[in-house]
Every structure is written in C-alpha cells, then in structure tokens.
C-alpha cells in the first residue's frame, strides 16, 4: 500500500484566526493525506513533533501580519535541530503578494495567500514530494 503523506499544521504565536488552516486541514485529508492540526504551538514544539511523527510537510497560517517573523523563526529552529531540509514547508494566511518572494527566500517552499484553492495546495505537496523522491 502506498504510504500516506503526513502533514502537520499549526498556528504560531497568539493570532486566533484558526478557520483558514482548519479548512486546509480538512481539504488535505479529503485529498487523501494524513493531517495533524495542533492549534497554537511553539516552533520548538512543532519541530520536535514533526521529527517524532516523521511528517512530510509542516504548514502554518498567519493572519496577523507577522508572517515574515514566524517564517524566520521556524527556519531558525529547524536549523538548530538539524532538520533544515527534512520537511516541505508551507505558509498560508493573509499577507501581501509583495512578501511572497521574501518568504521563499527565507526557505518556505509553498506560499498560499488569500484566494488560494485547496486543490492547488494538495497538488503542490504531491508534486514537490515526488520531486524530492519522498513518496
């Protein structure tokens, strides 16, 4: 049997806009992936859990305007735990298009702003993981 893609989703910090990421979580499980949604979680906790649970993808959502700060922080923690290249990283939420390139240069693989379609997110995950030979 084909191994299911495992996706870990969380909300960093204090921003309580949960609906977007919960919707994505549901859509990805409908697309055949196994999703774990943590709600609020520290980046330390998330990276640890991602390693333990052996997930393929870490996704998070920021609606507060602190998307750059949280992306940098996640990457810093991944590097600290020696897991810089172990996961496909996705961000969603409300942020300006002008910041997409910067998010990518920080190290986020998939950037999904307002109006993104969940099928695109699912396809993106499948294609990227295939490219990496992870599935």
């Amino acid at each position: 049997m084909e191994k299911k893609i495992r996706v870990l989703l969380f909300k960093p910090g204090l921003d309580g806009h949960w609906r977007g990421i919960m919707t994505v979580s549901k859509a990805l499980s409908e697309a055949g992936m196994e999703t774990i949604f943590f709600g609020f979680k520290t980046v330390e906790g998330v990276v640890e859990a991602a390693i333990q649970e052996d997930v393929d993808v870490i996704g998070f959502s920021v609606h507060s305007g602190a998307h750059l700060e949280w992306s940098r922080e996640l990457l810093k923690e991944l590097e600290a735990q020696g897991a810089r290249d172990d996961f496909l990283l996705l961000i969603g939420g409300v942020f300006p298009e002008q910041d997409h390139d910067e998010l990518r240069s920080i190290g986020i693989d998939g950037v999904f702003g307002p109006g993104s379609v969940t099928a695109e997110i699912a396809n993106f995950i499948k294609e990227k993981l295939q490219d990496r030979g992870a599935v």
Partner: protein
Amino acid sequence: MAVSDEIWKGLENWEKSKEGWKGRKEAFKTDAGIPLKDLYTPLDVEKIDYARDIGFPGQPPFTRGIYPTMYRGKLWTIRMFSGHGTPEETNRRWRMLYEEGETGFSSAVDALTFSGVDPDQEVPGAAHEVGKEGVPLYSIRGMEAMVQELPIDKVSVALVVEPLTSAAITSMYFNIARERGLKKEELIGTTQNDILTMTIGYIPWGSLKPKDLLKLACDLIEYCTIMKEAPRWNPINFTTYNYREGGIDAVQEIGMGLANAVAHIEELLKRGWKIDDFVHRLAFHLSAHRDFFEEIAKYRAARKLWYRLMKERYKPRNPDAYRFRFHVQTAGCSLTAQQPMVNIIRTAYQALEAVLGGTQSLHTNSYDEAICLPSEESVRLAVRTQEVLQEETGVAEVVDPLAGSYYMEALTREMEERIWDYFMRVEEMGGVVEALNTGWLFNEMSKAFNKRRRDQECGEEKIIGVNRYVMEDEEPAPPFRTNPRAAEIEKERLRKLREERDAEKVAKLLDKLRKACEVRENVLPVVSELTAAGATLGEITGVYREIWGIWQLPFVA
C-alpha cells in the same frame, strides 16, 4: 391582506404566460437556502396582518425600526473599527477619521491585548504580534495615549475586547475618562464582551472555560448597568458578526445571538437581579453579508424576535428593553485580495443593506483588508461610502422603505420562523454554554466553513476575481505596514510603568483579585483599582488563568 379574484385570475394568466420560458438555474434560493419563487404577490403576504406583524416604527413588534422617526431624527453612527502599531499612531488615525466625518470611535486591538498577554511576558513570540492586528493596550498608559485629546465626552467609544480582558480594558478607559473630568453618567460607549467571539469566532491563546467567560461578561454588565457605575455604557454587544464570518448563514447568526443573550440574562437572574435591572442595555453587532434582500429581512426579523422573546419570556417593564439595538459591520470574509477595488462595490451594497435594515451604527470595511490593515486612503474611501449614503442617495429620508414589498415581507416572515427554530434547538440542548462544552457550536461552525470552501472552489458560490472574471498578472497594491518598532516601544512603556508604579500596592491588589476569583465575586471593583494602580493586562488575566485554569477546546480539526 385580502386577495381578490382579479389577483387570482391575473396570477393564473401569468403562470400560463411563462410556460416555455427557461430559468437561468434549476432552482433559486437565498444564501441561507430559502427557496425563492420568481415572483412575490399579495398571495405571499395574505396571512400577514399589518397591525400585528409589521406595525409602526418605534412600536411593537418593531419590525420597521426601534425609533419612531429613525434616520429623520438622527443618522446612524459612522463607527470605524480601527487600530494599529502603537496607541499614539492609533490616536492619529482616529483624529484623521474624526476629521473625515466619523461619528463614533472603535478600537481594534492586537492579539496580545485580546488574549491578555504582556509583550515582556514569557509567551513565546508574543513580541512578533505587538501592534500587528490592532492597537496594543497593555496598561492604563496605553489607553491614555489612545484617547488623548479626543472628544470622548461627545463621541462614543467602542472597546472591542472580549470577557478575558473586558474588565481590565473597560476599567482603564473609565479611569482615564474620570481623570479627564468626565462623570460616570457621561460615559458613552460599548464594550464588546462577547463569549462566543472567543470560543467559536477567534480562538485566543490561553482562554478560559465558557462558564468563567460568562461570569466575567456578566460581571461587567452588573458593574456598569446594575451597580450604575456607567449607566449609559453598553456593557455587552452580542457579536453575531464574528460567528457569521466563519461561514454560517443568516439564520444561524441570529439564532446563536439570541441564545447567547439568553445565557447572560439567565446568569444575571440567577444572581438575584431583576430583568429590568439590566436588560435594556444589552446590544448586538450583526453582519451585512452578500445576499442583499435576505440581510435586510434578517434585521427586520431580528427586531421582531427580540420583541417576542422579551414579551413572552421576560416581560420587562422598561419599554426600551424591547428595542433590539444593533451595530453592523460589512462582511470581511466577502472581501478578496484579487482585484481589491471590487471590495469597494461589495462594501457599498452591504452598507446599503444595513441602512435599509435600520442599523444604529455602521462600520464599512476598507478595500485592502483581505491583504493588510487599512491604509489611510482606503479607510477614507470606506468612510466616504457611508457619507454618500447619508448625504447623496436619499435612502435615509423615509423609515423602513422596503416595508410592504411582497418579497420583503414574505422573506422577513420566513427568516423569523427559521431563526426561532434554530434558537430553540440551541435552547433545547441546554443553551450556549452547554453547546460550547459539548463542542456542538464549534461543530456547526466547522461544517459551515468547510461547506463554504467547497462551494467556492466548485464555483457554486461565485466570487468576482477569484472564480469569476479572474485577471492574470494583476499588479498588487502597495500594502500598509504597521510600525516595526511597536514591540520595542511598548516594552519600554511597560518597563517605565513598572519602575514608577507602587509595586507593593499592585501585588496586594493582585492578591485581592485572587480572592475575588476564588469566591467568584464581581472582579470589576478590584480590577478597576488595579488598572488605576498601573497593573498590566497580563498580570490581571494571569490571575484568572491561575485560579480558574485554561480551557481545552473540545474539538479536533
């Protein structure tokens, strides 16, 4: 309304004449799923009795409005929900809005203020969020800076915070207002103080159990209204807007709102108060969404149902208690990041719904809000949208102008029945606190937002710029950015405050608050002393968390 033979005959003829004409769709329905006919006639309002069901404005059942002359006497309040960066920057934005014609203030707070966390507290990453989603108000110093030199004696202020921080933020405001020489009778404004906003709407970090949130919400009602500390203040605003934003429909919105109000009424009656001690001060904050006529019918039905609830169940003596007072915000979730100028058009139609529905006050969203906080330019246009309605269109010149429309009256009746049924469903399962504890309410929300996502993605719900008339290679508008130094500035403000305040006094008062929480006394008197003495938001909320514990949300995604 009697239906004559001539009308019957005409209808028959018309039915015959449309045979062979094909509709654009198989079936037409409202956003809430109410099936629609292609035409409404006197037959659809046959059972509606004008005197009993519609009546006159300012009189039961208030279908046509809660005041006799509505906007002829006083136009609705232009109240823009606003805040960003630091209290000083927010103050500048509020001054600008006031000069542009705003007639009421409303504070949007940041995630820390909402959750009761200080920026120098050991909450990982808290500093990233300072001033990002709204104004940081961590102590009385911040509050003072926000309202500095604003005419708060004449212009009402809405404090958009929930039970977790409503006592602290409201008392900061009251303390500052008194310092500025205002008497308690002169304090005009609102605290949102809504338990459902922070349990099924926005999920704050480290929230309390529903019963503790309800306690805090009722403490503020008791303090302002019953103890008459601020008799003209609205100590609560049942914010159905925030539940609606999650994807539920207009019927669920008002059904949940009524059930929420009942939970507070029952709690206060249980405390031994009489209905007339407080019920006239309960107010609402509704959404204006995409379905134009359904939203207007919703406002008319909500007024009628509030009247019915009061009359059948609580029977207050104060005639004001029967008036359903509400603020409206146009639907943020209807805005798109794509072709953002189209948001101006959406917002204008939604604002018109609110006005035709008889709102008391209105916030219009800015066109860039699907991308960032509003810029000066975009928020000015949002104010202008209301000014055009008030001064150019003539829509405010006649009370409830859509009354008597066969469609509007039939739809109002249909909404009324559906809302009451939904409200009774929540009541039958034990009310909103029980429905929160079991996760039922959240499940309702989650079903709704997942359905909405599917409808949008398959194109069943059409959205210009997203699934219709999509433009490739759109040039994005320059985004508004909040002050990147806000965290630094606010940490420094707190450092100075902690240095200058009487630390021993604050510590003693925090102990007093611990005791009040343990025996479940009203927290307001001691919280008011605390904020005056320079206690911070995080310190006060920290006591609630310490004594009552944090709520584990009963749901999985």
